[in-house]
């Protein structure tokens, strides 16, 4: 009897140990290949912007056009763009949409890493867990460059840098962490099935519109809905950037929002670890 009761627990312990070993492997691969991760991030960046006459400028042109279009549609077309907290609608829009550019890149391109870098998986001995990390890092470089431009923009508009800007690295780090793990999870699944990549790309626009990038989440009056929306990591991050630039709030002031995000982060961590553990050995066989 005692044995029978013990067995499931033992099984659980064995499993936990295996997943722990996988996690240790991931950490070790990142440590051993840290030099390569930074080099490959630079290579990935080069790969994205080369072969076009304007090259690097595209990293700025594309977001600028998007921002202009939304600003035009809302301010001029819908006449909905009102000032928020003493800031022009334009700046409010910019503050929230800047992280979205990184997030949407990670949602779409970040979920096809193993297909784009299949030669690292099937032809060369290379730690596959680091692929998502260097792709994410390469997108992060662009994001940080855009972020600096935005800071300059705020200064030009007459809003100087203040103490709230100190929390920018926190939001950048949280966003990087969440979407790097997402990318590992999604790339594995989309390598297994084309459907998954299609599902993701068809939902990107939907995610954009429900996540409160174009409207103010804090204006939702329904108390339940406003709490539920905070479980969307995209909302938390876009809102977070606005905390820095517009609302002038600290990230720990809204405890509920922070906890909701951390729960989602932990969930993403679990998903990424689970899929990596289950699929890393199969991935070379199906690509």
């Amino acid at each position: 009897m005692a044995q029978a009761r013990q067995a499931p627990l033992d099984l659980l312990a064995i499993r936990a140990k295996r997943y722990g070993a996988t996690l240790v492997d991931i950490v070790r691969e990142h440590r051993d290949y840290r030099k390569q991760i930074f080099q490959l991030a630079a290579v990935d960046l080069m790969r994205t912007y080369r072969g076009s006459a304007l090259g690097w400028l595209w990293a700025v042109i594309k977001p600028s056009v998007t921002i202009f279009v939304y600003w035009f549609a809302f301010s001029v077309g819908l006449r909905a763009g009102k000032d928020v907290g003493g800031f022009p609608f334009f700046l409010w829009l910019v503050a929230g949409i800047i992280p979205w550019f990184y997030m949407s890149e990670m949602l779409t391109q970040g979920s096809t890493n193993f297909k784009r870098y299949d030669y690292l998986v099937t032809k060369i001995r290379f730690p596959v867990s680091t692929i998502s990390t260097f792709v994410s890092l390469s997108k992060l470089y662009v994001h940080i460059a855009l972020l600096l431009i935005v800071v300059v923009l705020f200064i030009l508009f007459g809003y100087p840098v203040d103490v709230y800007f100190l929390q920018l690295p926190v939001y950048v780090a949280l966003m990087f962490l969440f979407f790097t793990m997402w990318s590992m999870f999604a790339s594995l699944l989309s390598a297994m099935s084309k459907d998954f990549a299609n599902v993701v790309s068809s939902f990107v626009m939907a995610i954009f519109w429900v996540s409160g990038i174009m409207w103010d989440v804090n204006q939702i009056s329904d108390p339940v809905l406003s709490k539920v929306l905070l479980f969307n990591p995209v909302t938390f991050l876009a809102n977070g950037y606005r905390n820095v630039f517009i609302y002038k709030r600290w990230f720990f002031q809204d405890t509920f929002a922070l906890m909701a995000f951390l729960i989602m982060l932990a969930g993403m961590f679990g998903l990424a670890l689970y899929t990596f553990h289950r699929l890393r050995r199969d991935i070379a066989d199906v690509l």
Partner: protein
Amino acid sequence: MTASDVVIDFRHVYKRYRLYRSDKHRFLGIFTKRVKYREVFANRDLTFKVKRGESLAILGKNGAGKSTMLKMITGVAFPSSGHIEVNGRVSALLELTAGFDPEFTGRENVHLRGQLWGLDKEEILALEKQVVEFADIGVYMDQPMRTYSSGMKARVGFAISASINPEILVVDEALSVGDKAFREKCDRKIKEIMAKDDVTVIFVTHSSASAAAVCNRGMVLEKGKLVFDGSIDDAIEFYEGPREQPLVAEV
């Protein structure tokens, strides 16, 4: 034979592929065990050791499991069960035209590969010099690799793989790319690498003649199983002779 002399150690290695009816079934198969699939074994119960400096020929027909085994030695595929230990830097001349980023030039790909291996700047420059010299494709070295012919890709591929001073060299005979002059150049280079007696060579082939010229030990794979392991002459005899013949020195 001390442990450090063994560079490749396979213990009861199985490689199983699961064949699903479609991609959809494979996708569902990740989450539930109820999806039906067929199991195909590419390798069954492979157990052998290879010592440092040995030159081993692997003989077998198409589908005998040679490539799967090589992939596992190279470390890009993993066994379904069993244990594999490989000590030493493996350089595989498997698919020479693969493993490049088509958007980058030949030169950039050499740098990329050097970085992947974790070489420092000077080592990469030395590698680049060797590759440029050996591949001998002139101005194409600075063109994107997507513009290369398969022969040019193979030249760069071979030059890179041959230039890293491998401890274990895996040569696939499907290497017959490029013109005659270049092939002879490759053969000379392989022989040069093999002449260093601490380099272990694994040579994969359908043809016994080339195996006999290069190797001293032979293994025969059949339907994923190791059916013969012994001296190269005996292996060739086993591979080519009638199957009814009694096994002379099966291990």
